[in-house]
């Protein structure tokens, strides 16, 4: 692989843009196809399908074999609420190669002391979420318990293509949330995208256990097609 190609591949990943590296497995010939360039490529159909699935693999074309290295943008988790659960969740998420951003307008919570090595934005979700460009490689998690902060975040998430939305709170809390979001014009199908109560049911008690259940649910959603009991 040419260094310039490797460098472009890394740049695409850093910019959160999908790309496919096409390698002729016999000659070693290579090219990088970025998402906007897909249509003009001879392997357009295969590339599109592979990108959709996010899966690398071999394809045959005209007696030649190509390996497609599919590079989807890194999965990102936007956590609304710089709370105790988020403090437990941030380092675990890093171990899973999830890119975490914490959003909380309460400056007493959103501090670097509480969240070393994490991107922390002390802003209102409705102000900052559009700038974060919530895409289909992003999960949004609302953890403040405060409708003033959680609701605008959930509204932004439901208007986006994000692959996961979760909200902390009991069933009762969620019922009231459903009423508010319905009143705001969201359909039943929209609201049905929200995982609530958040997290896989592992009987979590402590903040760290709740963080495990949330991350497990995010991974389970991400790997839906591979699950045995899907």
């Amino acid at each position, binding site marked *: *692989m040419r260094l310039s190609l490797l460098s472009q591949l890394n740049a695409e990943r850093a910019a959160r843009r999908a790309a496919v590296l096409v*390698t002729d*497995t016999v000659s*070693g010939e290579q090219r990088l196809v970025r998402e906007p360039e897909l249509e003009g490529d001879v392997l357009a159909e295969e590339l599109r399908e592979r990108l959709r699935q996010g*899966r690398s693999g071999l394809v045959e074309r005209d007696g030649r074999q190509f390996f497609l290295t599919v590079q989807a943008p890194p999965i990102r988790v936007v956590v609304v609420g710089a709370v105790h659960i988020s403090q437990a969740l941030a380092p675990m998420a890093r171990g899973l*190669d999830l890119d975490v951003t914490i959003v909380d307008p309460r400056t007493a919570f959103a501090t670097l002391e509480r969240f070393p090595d994490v991107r922390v934005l002390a802003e209102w979700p409705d102000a900052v979420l559009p700038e974060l460009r919530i895409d289909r490689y992003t999960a949004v998690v609302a953890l403040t318990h405060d409708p003033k902060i959680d609701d605008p975040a959930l509204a932004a998430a439901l208007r986006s293509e994000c692959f996961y939305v979760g909200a902390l709170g009991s069933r009762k809390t969620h019922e009231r949330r459903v009423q508010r979001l319905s009143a705001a014009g969201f359909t039943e199908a929209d609201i049905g995208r929200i995982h609530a109560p958040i997290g896989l049911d592992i009987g979590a008690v402590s903040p760290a256990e709740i963080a495990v259940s949330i991350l497990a649910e995010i991974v389970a959603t991400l790997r839906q097609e591979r699950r045995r009991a899907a």
Partner: protein
Amino acid sequence: MLTTDTDILKTAESWKREGRGVAIATVVETWGSAPRPVGSHLVIDGDTNFLGSVSGGCVEGAVITEALDVIADGKPRMLEFGVADETAWQVGLSCGGRIRIYVERVD
């Protein structure tokens, strides 16, 4: 700290920029139960430093040895590993799977 695909390919780039010989090994095909999915990378330098994995540790040693040849002559290679058999030099996967690994030099 666990390494991720992001770290692995960034490391390949920075090692090369430091002037080291670098090869990238990629899992291109798997059959049966294989420990690492297609697309997994292992990055190797000329001093056998490495990052990432292409199996659960079963064949990394053999891949690193081949990678040194790739770094030396620049010719990409396709390696195949299967269930450990009688051939003394062949390294196998104890899980019973088979994998194909493409090894290329960064130029």
